């Protein structure tokens, strides 16, 4: 009996130590992840001199930022490009995902494979062909060009996610709606869409963060007066000397919308990302 008690006590001790070790590891990871945010916040509120000395705080970095960059206009550009791209991605991915998951037609598996294989293509490898193609239809240097490229890049993953989600919805539910008189189009609108809101939220958040933060497409496809905030901030760092505090202030402004969107949808995001991982 004593031996059993002893073994029980040591097992409890091991479990406690494991929890503490895990907690310590998590704290270290959190510090590593959060330090850049702290660095941005801390240095956004300094002047160039205060930054060099790493002492004192002021709003001069903000004044410099707004003096050199049309922040409000660029935030609006970012919002416009994000909203239009995500709208296209959602329309295409929900309809295509539903068709792949619930409609039976010849070659659907092959087409799905083709769409998903586009996930493997890196942006950098297609950026120049895209410039040429969009140039041919006079869509470079415009919102439309950038929006089309973002939509084309985001749609394969979004379609994959939506198709996976719709496959999890019982076929009988769709058939019940068809028998109830809806037809496939209205079944999609009235049943599939309301049921797939978590997946739609996931696609929205992931694509928002990706498009909002993107630099490459924005620099290549948008003219100076239509630049997004991320592309605008990059121009602050292109001089011979870079003033860090306004850059940090701009980064802070730029990060806030993405953080807000993430916080709003985080519950759905986790649900959407764990799709297919069990009942």
């Amino acid at each position, binding site marked *: 009996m004593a031996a059993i008690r002893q073994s029980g006590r040591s097992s409890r001790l091991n479990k406690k130590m494991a929890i503490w070790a895990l907690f310590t590891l998590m704290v270290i990871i959190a510090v590593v992840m959060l330090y850049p945010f702290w660095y941005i916040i801390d240095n956004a509120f300094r002047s160039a001199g205060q930054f060099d000395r790493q002492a004192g705080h002021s709003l001069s970095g903000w004044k410099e930022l707004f003096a050199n960059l049309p922040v409000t206009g660029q935030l609006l550009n970012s919002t416009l490009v994000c909203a239009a791209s995500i709208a296209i991605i959602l329309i295409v991915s929900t309809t295509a995902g539903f068709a792949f998951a619930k409609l039976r037609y010849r070659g659907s598996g092959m087409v799905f494979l083709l769409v998903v294989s586009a996930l493997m293509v890196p942006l950098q490898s297609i950026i120049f062909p895209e410039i040429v193609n969009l140039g041919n239809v006079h869509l470079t240097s415009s919102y439309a060009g950038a929006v089309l490229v973002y939509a084309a890049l985001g749609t394969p993953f979004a379609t994959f996610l939506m198709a996976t989600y719709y496959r999890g919805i*019982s076929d009988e*539910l769709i*058939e*019940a709606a*068809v*028998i*109830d008189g809806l037809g496939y189009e209205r079944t999609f609108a009235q049943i599939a869409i309301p049921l797939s809101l978590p997946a739609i939220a996931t696609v929205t958040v992931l694509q928002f963060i990706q498009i909002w933060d993107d630099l490459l497409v924005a620099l290549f496809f948008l003219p100076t007066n239509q630049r997004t905030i991320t592309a605008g901030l990059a121009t602050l760092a292109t001089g011979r000397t870079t003033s860090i505090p306004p850059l940090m202030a701009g980064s802070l402004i730029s990060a806030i919308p993405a953080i807000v969107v993430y916080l709003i949808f985080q519950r759905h995001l986790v649900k959407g990302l764990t799709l297919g991982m069990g009942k």
Partner: protein
Amino acid sequence: MAQIELESVTKEFPDGTTAVSSLDLAVGDGELLVLVGPSGCGKTTALRMVAGLEDVSSGTISIDGRPVNDVEPRHRDIAMVFQSYALYPHLSVYDNMAFSLKYRRVAKAEIRQRVAEAARILELEPYLQRKPRQLSGGQRQRVAMGRAIVRQPRAFLMDEPLSNLDAKLRVQMRAEIAQLQRSLGTTTIYVTHDQTEAMTLGTRVAVISGGVLQQVAAPQELYRRPANLFVAGFIGSPPMNLIDATLERGSAAGDDAGPVVVFGPHRLAIPAEVIAAHPAFERYLGQAIVLGIRPEHLHDAALAPAGISGSAIRLPVRLREELGSEVQVHGAIGTAAHVSDDAADDVRSLATIVARMDPRTKIAEGETAKIAVDTAELQFFDPASGDSILA
């Protein structure tokens, strides 16, 4: 209400599988026809073809005389109750039931009235504002029924609607469905793999195996006069005892004056009236047949009803099972049991037969019991075709 007819309906899937083969079936106005058979026999596919959820490869499905092969499901005016209930999870019970009516542009007041009436019949009134996830299995099943009822369709199609319920609730819901169907008088096709459900619910029962219709008849007819070995083995629990035997001419005197059926060391005289009613018997004299005996037609000789005590066999008892209302006795027959293709026939492959006896029986394991056989109820099958000789 409607009449539904299937004429030579066949369903072949693209991979070459024939799920339903040349099915002929007519469901009368207001009738409850049950399609029963083992898993994968094609019964659900047949139902889905009637619903319009599966295309028909060949043959014709008609509703009220009008072919509907190319009519979309929503225009067939049928309602379906699914195995999983298929309730819309984001809608309340009320909205689930009202759903189809809204899309058929039924007036709001009438929708309210129809849903209220269905909710009253199904005792769902307290739950109308709840979501399906807040309901028990039985309540969800009722909502699925309610959704079908409010439509006032020409026919109900039910695909194993009770199979997700526990045994007790299933019995209760079975009775409720039967009462409801009778009071509404709506033509219904009901699919199940549970033969008890089929027998208790159906006006007629269609037994399907391997995509082929085996027999369609009223439950009692199906039980008492199975058309073939499959039906004989499938309908009834415990299943009919099927034994390889031969039909022989009896000796000149005594009980053996007429034909006798012989299996192992056992001989059973066949009553003259059975032979007289079935002239085909003569052709099988001297030949192998498959003998079928329902478990309830084997009695403890000491307790047997008058009139059947004369035909008895002696069996070593292998197992005695107490079930309260009856005792099931497993006895060794001393010869090979008939082995069919049906994998569920494990008991018969042990060369034992099962008898359902009066609970007062004193027969014990290990003893050799005298078993009285009700020979008027024996069944005989052609071993080659599997068809009943009595049909």
